[in-house]
């Protein structure tokens, strides 16, 4: 639909950035003197699936973690530049990073469930973030599990250990856990890489459904998945020893007609279509 919007990342214009969910300007990340990301500029529009592809080690996960300041947890990482979420700089001193993270869900590569019951896992965050009555909590749990398409599978065993679920179910449980606190955006770091094809399909369907109400940033290695679910794509490649956004475009444009040499190489090499 927007094939004309095909630009080099460096000259990414700001047409869409006025109401962008995330707007990243001149993001630089270093760790122990090594530059991980250099001059990253990206705008991510609301209620879309924004895909991030690129070779391993280029800094895709690091970029994702800059968006909700999970990078704070690694002391040696230094971040500079401007990252805005809904118009507010995430690194503004007045911003409480915990409150920020509560508004931005995060799905890890490996599902991380706590050694507790299913219901405890779903409510793990929300019951600490908001003061809710028991009845409301039950509703919240059901809604989140339904949204994560897990309700029908676990409704009868909510008090069983979450560790007994399959990995695919665990990943959806993690999604439900994130959804329970009604985040505005959801960051996903290769959420299906540990899953079998069937579970992968379930997650992909969920992503398409969730984008009606949420902004989704999806890091993926799977070009087919990118093609199936993303609206926009950014390719993060290594240039001069540091990761940077080589190209941003709407999905089809980038995949069919990459402009940038690194992207051509990346798409042409090992990660051919599945």
């Amino acid at each position, binding site marked *: 639909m927007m094939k004309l919007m095909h630009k080099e990342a460096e000259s990414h214009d700001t047409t869409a950035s006025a109401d962008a969910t995330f707007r990243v300007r001149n993001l630089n990340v270093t760790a122990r003197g090594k530059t991980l990301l250099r001059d990253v500029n990206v705008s991510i529009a609301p209620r879309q699936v924004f895909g991030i592809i690129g070779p391993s080690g280029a800094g895709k996960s690091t970029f994702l973690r800059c968006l*909700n300041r*999970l990078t704070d*947890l690694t*002391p040696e990482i230094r971040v500079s530049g401007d990252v805005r979420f809904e118009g507010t700089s995430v690194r503004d001193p007045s911003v409480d990073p*915990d*409150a*920020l*993270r*509560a*508004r931005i*869900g*995060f799905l*890890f590569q*490996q599902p*991380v469930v*706590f*050694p*507790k*019951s299913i219901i*405890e896992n779903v409510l*793990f*965050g929300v019951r*600490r*973030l908001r003061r809710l009555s028991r009845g409301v909590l039950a509703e919240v749990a059901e809604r989140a599990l339904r949204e994560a398409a897990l309700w029908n599978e676990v409704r009868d065993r909510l*008090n*069983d*250990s*979450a*560790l*007994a679920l399959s990995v695919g179910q665990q990943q959806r449980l*993690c999604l439900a*856990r*994130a959804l329970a*606190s009604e985040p505005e955006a959801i960051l996903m770091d290769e959420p299906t890489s540990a899953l079998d094809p069937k579970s992968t399909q379930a997650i992909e369907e969920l992503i398409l459904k969730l984008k009606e109400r949420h902004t989704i940033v999806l890091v993926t290695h799977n070009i087919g998945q990118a093609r199936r679910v993303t609206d926009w794509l950014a390719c993060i490649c290594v240039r001069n020893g540091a990761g940077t956004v080589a190209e941003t475009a709407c999905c089809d444009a980038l995949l069919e007609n990459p402009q940038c040499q690194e992207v051509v190489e990346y798409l042409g090499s090992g990660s051919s279509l599945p």
Partner: protein
Amino acid sequence: MMTNEDLVRDLRLSDGAARRPYLAGISCTRLASFAFTALALGTVGALTLIFILQSLPVWQDEGIGYLTGGKWFYRVQTFGALPMIYGTLTVALIALLLAAPIGIGAAIFTSEFLPARVRLAVKITIELLAGVPSVVYGLIGILLLRDWIYELFARFDLLSGDTLLTAGVLLGVMILPTVMTLADDALRSVPAEQRRAARGLGLTATETVLAVTIPQAGRGLIAALLLGLGRALGETIAVFLVVGRQDNNLPANIFSPRAWLESGQTLSSKLGGSETNIAYGDPLHWAAMVGLALILMTMVLAATIGGAWQRKTKYAPSI
């Protein structure tokens, strides 16, 4: 990174090679290893057996009263160990009440809130101090602690600075490094992803510690306390110098804190005292002394094995 399982499997493969007919014969290394293992096991077995055998007369003479009797007068051959069991438990309890919050709090600080480099430095310092000999603690106890306790609690009209509390506080400081370093290990063993997941949900660092790290490290923390308790129960010299060594001092109400400000006797302070020399040669008295060692050993081993077991069992689904 290979696991021990892998190593064992690999070696079993090569062990098969060793048993090929043309390499017949048993390896000397294996023989020596098993012999040394048997020696160690045998020594501890002999130790237990000797203690049981040598303490037999007192069990025959006093029966269960040896454990429940409140009076110990060796000159008239009355042997009741209860006041010493009480003293040992009280002193260890006080030590634990002191070391548990401080040790675990400090461990939470080093493992959750300190950067790795600083954490290592603090941990090394603490472990260094875990080696301070108990006789040195005893010196500090006589020189400073007993006077402090005496003045600090003066309004309770305590008879002297040699109290169960003094010994307990001294022991608390002694086991603090043990508790802290084991608790730190337990907290560090909680996978980092779990913390990250909680932080990703928007929980604060504090909420993450309380909701994720501590519950999951729970067994490890209990193990740290139990192993600390084991050390506290068995300590001899430091306690000996400040506990007062008063026999037969069972308080009327053991739950009153006032009872902690009395002098007392612990199993180890009794064993470290002059009676051990006097008792040898009088079968019954000697049996009573050895019996104290047996009781002490049982108590310490219960705590230590409990701790070891807690530490070993991986965290399981808690529901």
